[in-house]
């Protein structure tokens, strides 16, 4: 087996008396798509926040390509190649879609004094436009991000996260706040676009149909612990997962079969 791209060892996080992460030991192989599931408050966002440097774990270690990254600030982790989108889209609302992406592309490709080079460079604009097309937001190129629909804003948020060409992408509830009919098409766009980059993807998702459809592996959280780590078919039939995550028996194929 190849060495893991990301290795999480004995991770703990307490908020006062609340245990949001407890003894988490998982590792991820390059190219995997992993679904993170769990009821509200199970610790999914906390897990994502610790890997991306927003939260410092109380105990434990996170290794990226065998290098410890525990406690590094988000910007350093992002520069190493671990990027994320947010449960609530985080975009620059008073900039246009193009400017949002340009900023993302420019920061990623301008370390140090490169930040003093002009933002509107032809090669950067071209890259931003390619990303816009892949994520199907090219039509909104010159619209302000504040004017976008929920779905388009989610896509922009994700497009910005991948603009720097990360190796690992964490998506926190990419379909939250999206109507049921829009979820599948949105995820199709995202997964289609991401496939081209051979990324390792960890995404938090509540919709089991989407989980089943797109992931290779499921991590189920309950009260800060990983209660199941298995391929989707197996995980969704796990009694503990059914009891603590899904809240009932899951019908494989979501009734489409």
């Amino acid at each position, binding site marked *: 087996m190849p060495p893991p791209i990301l290795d999480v060892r004995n991770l703990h996080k307490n908020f006062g008396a609340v245990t949001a992460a407890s003894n988490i030991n998982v590792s991820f192989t390059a190219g995997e798509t992993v679904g993170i599931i769990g009821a509200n408050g199970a610790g999914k966002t906390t897990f994502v926040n610790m890997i*991306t440097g927003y939260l410092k774990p109380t105990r434990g270690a996170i290794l990226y390509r065998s290098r410890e990254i525990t406690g590094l*600030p*988000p*910007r350093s982790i*992002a*520069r190493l190649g671990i*990027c*994320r989108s*947010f449960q609530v889209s*985080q*975009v*620059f*609302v*008073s*900039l246009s879609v193009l*400017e949002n992406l340009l*900023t*993302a592309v*420019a*920061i*990623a490709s*301008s370390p140090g004094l*490169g*930040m*003093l*080079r*002009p*933002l*509107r460079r032809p090669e950067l604009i071209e890259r931003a436009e390619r990303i816009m097309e892949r994520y199907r937001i090219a039509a909104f190129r010159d619209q302000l991000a504040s004017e976008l629909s929920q779905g388009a804003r989610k896509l922009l948020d994700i497009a*910005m*996260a991948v*603009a*720097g060409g990360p190796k690992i992408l964490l998506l926190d509830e990419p379909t939250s706040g999206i109507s049921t009919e829009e979820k599948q098409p949105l995820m199709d766009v995202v997964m289609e676009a991401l496939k081209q980059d051979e990324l390792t993807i960890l995404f938090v998702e509540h919709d089991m149909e989407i989980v089943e459809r797109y992931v290779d592996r499921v991590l189920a959280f309950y009260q800060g612990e990983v209660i199941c780590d298995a391929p989707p078919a197996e995980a969704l039939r796990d009694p503990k997962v059914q009891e603590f995550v899904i809240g009932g028996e899951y019908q494989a194929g979501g009734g489409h079969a």
Partner: protein
Amino acid sequence: MNLVRDRTVQGLTLALGVMLIVSALVPSWIVNQLLFAFSRAIVVLGLLVLWRTRLVSFGHALYFGLGAYTVAMTSRYTGVNDAFALLGAAALLSTVVGFFVGFIIRRYRDIFFAMLNLAFSMILYGILVKTEALGSTDGFTIEQPTFAGIAFEDPSEGKLALLCLLMVVGWAVAVGVQAYLRSTLGRLTTAIGDNEIRVEYLGYSAEHAIHIKYVLSTFLAGLGGGFMALALGQVDPDSMVNWTASGELVFVTILSGPGSVAAPFIGSFVFEILRTYAFEWMPHAWQMIVGGTLLIVIFFMPGGLWGLVSGVAQRLTRRRPAAAAPGAGG
């Protein structure tokens, strides 16, 4: 560099050429007004950079005053009296202080950012007023400087030389700020104002970016303060370091508008004229006119004078093709 093709840079260069000629022809009271206006404009340019990131400082008289006093003290106590050396010292000292103060300031936003600057400026004010060697409440006068060794016998010639230097330096810093604002780092203004977390996750520190903007603004404030000291031929704590001086700088920033690096020069000039006439009409209530102007700007001209100027310019240029269209059709 494609800065040469930048419309703002072209406009500034043209304006510099015209102003260099004009300033040789106008009466000396206008030379003085221009000296005050453009000295302040350099400071306002730095506040514009901060304002684009939605940061307002109520204490930049700290750096303005630091620049002015550096010029005065250096000329008084070291015997160095060349404008280039004095201004260089002014800019350097305020930049160094800004760099260190910046480590504290960069952690704060909104009203805390504004007031923390005010707090630091009040400390300097207190020190100046209390210290006899620094001129106390009266401040002191400054000798006319030399320019790269050249001394002017006639004071009005000296003023004109200072104005020429000021305009060239003003042009240079405006072009520099324009280049900065076009850079990736400089463009992290609205973005930081919008969403610092996102900036962080894209791989850059918002605090770091703010620190750089802050130091840039303190450099400009010190430089502008140095010019102001030479223009006035004196320094004093009340008109240069007190909180009212900071307020004036914020006033001119709002009056100018954030739309262009040229705006501070127009705004500062209008402010100088406004204040002079207001003072002549109503010696005891000139603040009323200045305050009224501020209200008008806030209510009716959110883009400041620059917004007004560029709006009119846009309407003029738009009318031409519109008028040509029917003719082309017929």
